């Protein structure tokens, strides 16, 4: 049969469709009983994200916002902070529009305490957040990225915060997105990486869309130049210094939306992975001397399997395949797939998306917030991805992609292969919405990790994990002594039931979000004994024996025993 007309080749359709990765694993998945119940209203959470959209289609409108889980009042119960946007010129002004801090009352309910706490971030167009004890004074401080100067709230230790953005020197005024704390220079206090997105201001707004059909749409990020990210070194006196250039992180090619600190090469210091939108990602190896080397190309983490830069959004890292190394995961736009980079342990990564079964289910979705967590405590990390398209008029361009999308819940079958089981896991997964931020916390302290979500232009959600609780678990709260007080950057190896698992204490991940800072392990049927080895940012390595099962334990640096000692 000849093709006399247009000469379109079937080979070329593949390139056109960007078909780069589907898949249900070939082998059968284990039985799954994950259950998540939407308890937003019952918990007293009533946060409505308002983007300020009024038809002009400023790009910022469709990007927010994030959520942080952190224990601001140090009462042992994780609280929630939802980032809010702000009115835009054409939108009706709402002077009361503000971010929201919800205090966990411990009875399944939360109470909004934004005003008394003083963390409303009013008048600022908020994007994301991260929490850490930046001054090592025993309470969690809060950093908020904005479209415009960012905000650092110092926790006063009495339930209130003080805005110290300017005096601390971290009020970066670009379009801030991801924020992540870690002690990159091992000087016992946490430093701060801030991702910036685009060189965009309201004055630089461009009209995009389909002129022929008079459709005004959100612009592709290619319409704007990139801007550099910033690394702030904590000076230990309440101030920070911008050390981006001397640390080797000055890069004008990034359009950053996601960032995570992780010791991918296990050399005892934290490295940095940055997800960029429509340009390559960055992987920076920490040289252990205050500088970094970009190793993106040789590591294979910057591109799709076809060598194409993708629209990176949210990120997480975990040991997906049980080999004791941190693997990387990045969420992407539709017609791309979310990518899983499996760590080979020699500085390189293998694209494991297809083999893991994570490609196909994500092909038509725009993924944002994401987290690996052992949702069923069966000794492997499962995966949550919250979805929703960028363009609120995507249906005018496509007959198979929608603006509102359902979230995905992937169950790990124990070998690093995943099966999407959201539809069976609760009513929220059958809803179509516009997902953005996402985090993990155990708000009811039952050892089953719960999920908090933000929606662009919609209501935040809290999902309680009600998976039948037959498996055991351990949750660790770290207390640094020589290291930063949060123990951020600590590498934890847990052994129980003959299985070893690894995890890191981090601050900042997913999309514009942060998790509760506790290190959680599912133990499966094993009820112990549990041994934990901690490698602290200070370099101290120690072992904690007989860690209690099915409860939260605090590991204080220096209170363990030397590894190998009896």
């Amino acid at each position, binding site marked *: 049969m000849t093709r006399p*007309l247009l000469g379109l080749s*079937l080979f070329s359709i593949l390139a056109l469709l960007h078909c780069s990765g589907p898949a249900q694993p070939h082998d059968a998945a284990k039985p799954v009983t994950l259950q998540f119940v939407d308890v937003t209203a019952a918990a007293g959470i009533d946060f409505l994200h308002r983007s300020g959209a009024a038809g002009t289609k400023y790009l910022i409108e469709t990007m927010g916002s994030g959520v942080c889980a952190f224990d601001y009042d140090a009462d042992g119960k994780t609280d929630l902070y939802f980032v809010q946007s702000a009115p835009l010129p054409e939108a009706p002004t709402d002077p009361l529009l503000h971010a929201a801090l919800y205090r966990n009352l411990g009875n399944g309910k939360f109470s909004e305490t934004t005003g008394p706490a003083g963390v409303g971030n009013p008048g600022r167009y908020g994007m994301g957040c991260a929490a850490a004890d930046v001054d090592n004074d025993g309470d969690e401080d809060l950093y908020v990225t904005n479209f415009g100067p960012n905000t650092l709230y110092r926790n006063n230790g009495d339930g209130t915060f003080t805005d110290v953005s300017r005096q601390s020197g971290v009020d970066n005024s670009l379009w801030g997105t991801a924020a992540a704390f870690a002690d990159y220079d091992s000087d016992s206090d946490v430093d701060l990486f801030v991702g910036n997105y685009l060189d965009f201001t309201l004055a630089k707004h461009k009209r995009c869309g389909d002129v022929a059909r008079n459709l005004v749409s959100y612009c592709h990020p290619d319409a704007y130049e990139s801007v550099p990210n910033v690394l702030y070194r904590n000076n230990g006196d309440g101030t920070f210094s911008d050390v981006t250039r001397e640390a080797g992180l000055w890069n004008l090619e990034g359009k950053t939306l996601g960032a995570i600190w992780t010791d991918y090469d296990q050399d005892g210091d934290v490295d940095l992975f940055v997800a960029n939108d429509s340009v390559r990602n960055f992987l920076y190896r920490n040289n252990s001397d205050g500088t970094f080397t970009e190793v993106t190309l040789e590591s294979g983490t910057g591109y799709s399997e076809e060598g194409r830069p993708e629209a990176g959004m949210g990120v997480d890292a975990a040991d997906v395949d049980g080999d004791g190394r941190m693997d990387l995961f990045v969420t992407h736009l539709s017609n791309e797939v979310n990518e899983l980079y499996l760590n080979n342990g020699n500085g390189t990564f293998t694209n494991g998306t297809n083999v893991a079964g994570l490609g196909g289910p994500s092909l038509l979705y725009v993924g944002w917030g994401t987290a690996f967590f052992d949702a069923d405590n069966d000794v492997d990390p499962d995966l949550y991805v919250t979805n929703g398209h960028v363009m609120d008029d995507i249906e005018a361009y496509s007959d198979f992609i929608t603006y509102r999308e359902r979230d995905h819940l992937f169950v790990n079958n124990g070998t690093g292969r995943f099966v999407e089981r959201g539809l069976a896991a609760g009513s929220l997964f059958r809803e179509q919405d516009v997902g953005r931020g996402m985090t993990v916390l155990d708000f009811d302290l039952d050892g089953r990790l719960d999920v908090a979500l933000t929606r662009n232009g919609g209501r935040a959600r809290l999902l309680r994990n009600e998976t039948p609780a037959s498996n055991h678990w351990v949750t660790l709260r770290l207390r640094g002594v020589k290291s930063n007080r949060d123990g951020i950057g600590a590498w934890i190896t847990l052994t129980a039931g003959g299985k070893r698992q690894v995890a890191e204490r981090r601050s900042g991940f997913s999309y514009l979000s942060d998790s509760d800072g506790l290190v959680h392990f599912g133990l499966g049927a094993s009820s112990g004994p549990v041994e934990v080895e901690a490698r602290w940012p200070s370099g101290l390595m120690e072992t904690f024996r007989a860690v209690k099962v099915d409860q939260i334990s605090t590991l204080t640096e220096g209170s363990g025993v030397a590894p190998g000692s009896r």
Partner: protein
Amino acid sequence: MPARPSRPAGWWLVGILLLALGCRSRPAEAELTSAKDRTPQVQSLLADAARAYQRGNLLLTQQLLLKAGAAAPDDPDIALDLGDTLNRLQHMESARQHYVEFLSRHPSASQVRLALGLTLMGLGRWEEAVNHIRRVTRELPQDQNARFNLGIVLARLGRTPEALAELRRAAKSSPPDPALLTELGITLMRAGEPAEAAKTLEQALSLDPDNVPALFNLGQCYGRLGRVDEAREALERFSLASGRRERYIDEKRLFRAAQARSDSLARVGKDEQALGALLAYRDSLADFPLFQQELGVAYLRAGRRQEAIAAFERAVAKDSSLTESHAQLAGLYQQAGEGDKAMRARQAAARPSSQGPLPSDTP
């Protein structure tokens, strides 16, 4: 004494009989038609569609192909072109339905089935895609294109050993093809065979030195094999080739924006403004051949023939496969009394075009 058929066996025989009768009563598949069966009206519609396509007007292409398809409903080539156009318009679900409808009348139209399989891939319906494409490989065992695509979809499904088998068979039976070798190389890497993967990717690059996926994966491959210097060199080549491709994609996106703006003005008769809309992109798209062609058309509409000639000449100088530019130049040279040049342009316009389609824009 032979045993009498038992009752259940008797029912079984009745079932077979009924099935046979059912098969016999199924309407015969309509006969496929081909290019020689096309009426002048269909041929004219297809010629208009080809022109609309080359000018990037996919909506008009779709309309014309719909009309042609209605007039020649059993022509698989028209069905394929309409499906392709729908896919490029990001109407993949419509394309899928269109192919399914055609196949319901012509289940033996293997190329249409393959196109359906590829569309299902784009829709993330991978298992269904495997079923359709595998059927094509059975119907057309010599079609290595189908086998190649089967290998791709199996690889995407993470079924690496099966994918490898299909890709190896396709590679063995086809002339060396860089796309096929690249996919085979990537799959070999995934299968944990970096040495063979490297050889395969090197072969792909000997045929297409700027093959971005091959360069990227070869760099990774060398890295895994500890061939550090070669890895560095391959990745440097990848960076250069990737940069060129990114530039092309940026220019294409910009071109689409310029074209849309200009078209909307031309459609309401504002030819000078339409030309002005294009000229606003003159500097940033100077090296983009399709932009020069579009500029030539706009100059013609505005009655500025000399500038039109110059623009078309720039277009074919940058891309000699732009048949519309050659055709326009033939007419313009003829009008200017430059017979030799007109003849050469006509010959160039008649040459089969090697110009691949512009990738569709991601909104």
